[in-house]
C-alpha cells in the first residue's frame, strides 16, 4: 500500500502543488495495482439461457458471495455465443453443457481445464394415449424411430439451439431422418422451449424438452413424460476457467475460486438443494447429494 503521506521539504507553493499532484498520481497507480489483489472486482460467467431461466444462478450466487465475497455477473446467451464470449476473453468462467465444444475450448488453449459440475436431463413428452407406443422404453433412439415410422406428430425446436442439436443427434442415433417430413408430422416451431411445448400441447404431439422447462411449464394438457433415463438424454454441465495466458486481464484467481466452490461439497449440496415445485432440477456430478 502506498504511503500517501510523504512530505515535501519546501515552502514553495508550486512545489507543494506539484508534490501533491505527484502523490495523488502515485496513489492512483497504487490503487489501480492494488485493486487486483484487494477487495474483489467480481467475475463474469458466460452461461446459457436455459441455465439462467431455471433460476439456479439466482439461488447459487448469493450463497457463493456470502462464502467468498466474490460477486458474479452472468451473461446468459446461447451455448455457441457463450463459448465465443469466453474465447474472446470477455468472461472469466465458461459454464455450458456441450462437452465436445468444451473439450475443444480447452484443447485449443482457451480454458485451463474442464470440470464436470452437474447434470440434468432431457425427457420425451407426449400425449397420454401414446399412439407411437413408446411409454416406458429406456431407449430414446427406438422411441424416436417408432414416432417416425408411425408418422406421429413430433414438434422440434427447429432453431439451431443446443436442445435442437441434441434432438438431431438422437434422430441420428435412431438412423431416421425426419427432415423429409417437415411440415407433415415433423413440425418445427423455430422457437424456444415454452413455445415449442405449447405447440406440442395444442397438437397432442411428442417433443423433446429439458426437464427444468417441463417442470415449470404451465400448459401441460394431455402431455406426460413418456421416455426418460436413457444416458443419451443426459445433459452434463461443466465449468472452465478462461486461460489467463491467453487473456491476461481475466480474474483467474476469483474465477478458480468460483469453479472450486461449485465442485466443493458446499457447492454440490447447494446445487442438489435447488428445487422448483418441489423437484430437484440439477444433479451434482462430483459429490453424492448431501443428506439433510
Amino acid at each position: 500500500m502506498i504511503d500517501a503521506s510523504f512530505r515535501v521539504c519546501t515552502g514553495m507553493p508550486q512545489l507543494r502543488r506539484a508534490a501533491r499532484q505527484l502523490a495523488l498520481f502515485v496513489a492512483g497507480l497504487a490503487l489501480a495495482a492494488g485493486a487486483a489483489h484487494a477487495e474483489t472486482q467480481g467475475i463474469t460467467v458466460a452461461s446459457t439461457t436455459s441455465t439462467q431461466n431455471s433460476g439456479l444462478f439466482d439461488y447459487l450466487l448469493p450463497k457463493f458471495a456470502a462464502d467468498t465475497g466474490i460477486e458474479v455477473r452472468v451473461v446468459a446467451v446461447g451455448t455457441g455465443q457463450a463459448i465465443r464470449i469466453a474465447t474472446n476473453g470477455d468472461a472469466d468462467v465458461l459454464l455450458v453443457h456441450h462437452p465436445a465444444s468444451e473439450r475443444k475450448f480447452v484443447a485449443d488453449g482457451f480454458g485451463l481445464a474442464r470440470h464436470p459440475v452437474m447434470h440434468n436431463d432431457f425427457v420425451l413428452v407426449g400425449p397420454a394415449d401414446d399412439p407411437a407406443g413408446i411409454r416406458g422404453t429406456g431407449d430414446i433412439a427406438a422411441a424416436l424411430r417408432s414416432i417416425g415410422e408411425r408418422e406421429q406428430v413430433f414438434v422440434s425446436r427447429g432453431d439451431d439451439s443446443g436442445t435442437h442439436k441434441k434432438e438431431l443427434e438422437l434422430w441420428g442415433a435412431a438412423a431416421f431422418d425426419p427432415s423429409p417430413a417437415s411440415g407433415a408430422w415433423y413440425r418445427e416451431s423455430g422457437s424456444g422451449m415454452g413455445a415449442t411445448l405449447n405447440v406440442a400441447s395444442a397438437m397432442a404431439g411428442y417433443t423433446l424438452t429439458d426437464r427444468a422447462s417441463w417442470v415449470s411449464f404451465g400448459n401441460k394438457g394431455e402431455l406426460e413424460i413418456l421416455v426418460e433415463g436413457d444416458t443419451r438424454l443426459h445433459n452434463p454441465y461443466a465449468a472452465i476457467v478462461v486461460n489467463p495466458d491467453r487473456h491476461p486481464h481475466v480474474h483467474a484467481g476469483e474465477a478458480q475460486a468460483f469453479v472450486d466452490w461449485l465442485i466443493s461439497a458446499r457447492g454440490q449440496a447447494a446445487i442438489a438443494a435447488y428445487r422448483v415445485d418441489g423437484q430437484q432440477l440439477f444433479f451434482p456430478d462430483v459429490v453424492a447429494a448431501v443428506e439433510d
Partner: protein
Amino acid sequence: MVDEAHRAEDRSEVRLGSSDDHPLLPLVARGLQFGINGRRIINDVSFWIGSSGRTVILGPNGAGKSVMLRLCHGLLQPTSGEIRWGELSVARAREQQAMASQHPVLLRRTVTGNLLHVLRVKGVPKAERQALVDAALQQAGLAGLGSRAARTLSGGQQQRLAIARAFVLKPAVLLLDEPTANLDPAAVRGVEELIGAIGAAGTKILMTTHDIAQARRLAADVMFLNDGRLLEHAPAAEFFTAPKDPAAARFLAGELPD
C-alpha cells in the same frame, strides 16, 4: 445478476457455429448408382447418417461395401446420384478424412518413419511431430516399437500402425475397409480397441465388415448392403434383435452366402 437482459423463454438460443458441431455430418446420399462395364455394383442407394457414433456397413462379400466406402471418400465417382458430407462436397470433405483398408500399405521405413512421413507431407511443424508420433504409438499399443522396420511387425501390429497413421492427423472422419479381415482373433481385438478409442475421442467412424460378430461389437448403427442395394439402416440394437428386411434376417441367421 444478469448482464444480458433476462431473455423471454421464447427467445431462441444462438446458433452453434459449425466448429462446435461435427463438421462433416450428416452424411447424405441420394440415388447413388455405380457400375462398371454395364454391371450395377451400387444400385439406387440413399441414406442419411446423422450420428457421430460408429456406423458399420455390413453385408456379404461382393455386396458392394468397399465400393460404397470409396464413393463416400471420393476415390470413385458415382455414375449418378449425389453424396454430401454436411455442407461439403465429397472432394472438399476428403481433406478432413482418412481411410485405411484391409491390407495395410506401409512404407519401407521404421514405424516412426511411417508416422513422420504423413506429418511431413501435411506440413505439420517439425517441432510438433515427435509428440504426435509418441501419442500415436501409445494409443496404438506400439510404444517402444518406433525404431522397428514397419514391415517386420505382425499383421495386427501393421494394421494398428496403418490406422494410427490414418488417425495421426486427427481427421474428422475415419473410414475403414474391412480392417481386421486378415487377422487372428487376438489381433482383431487389438484393432477393435484402437477403433473404439478413436471413435470415443469424437472421430466419426465409417467402416465395412462382413463379420456379424464384429458388427455387433462395434456398431452404433448398421447399414445392411446386399447385391448393391441398401436394404436396411437401423440402430444396432434394433438391427440385431429385429431386422425388418428379410435378406438381413437371413444374413444374420447365417443363410446368405458369405
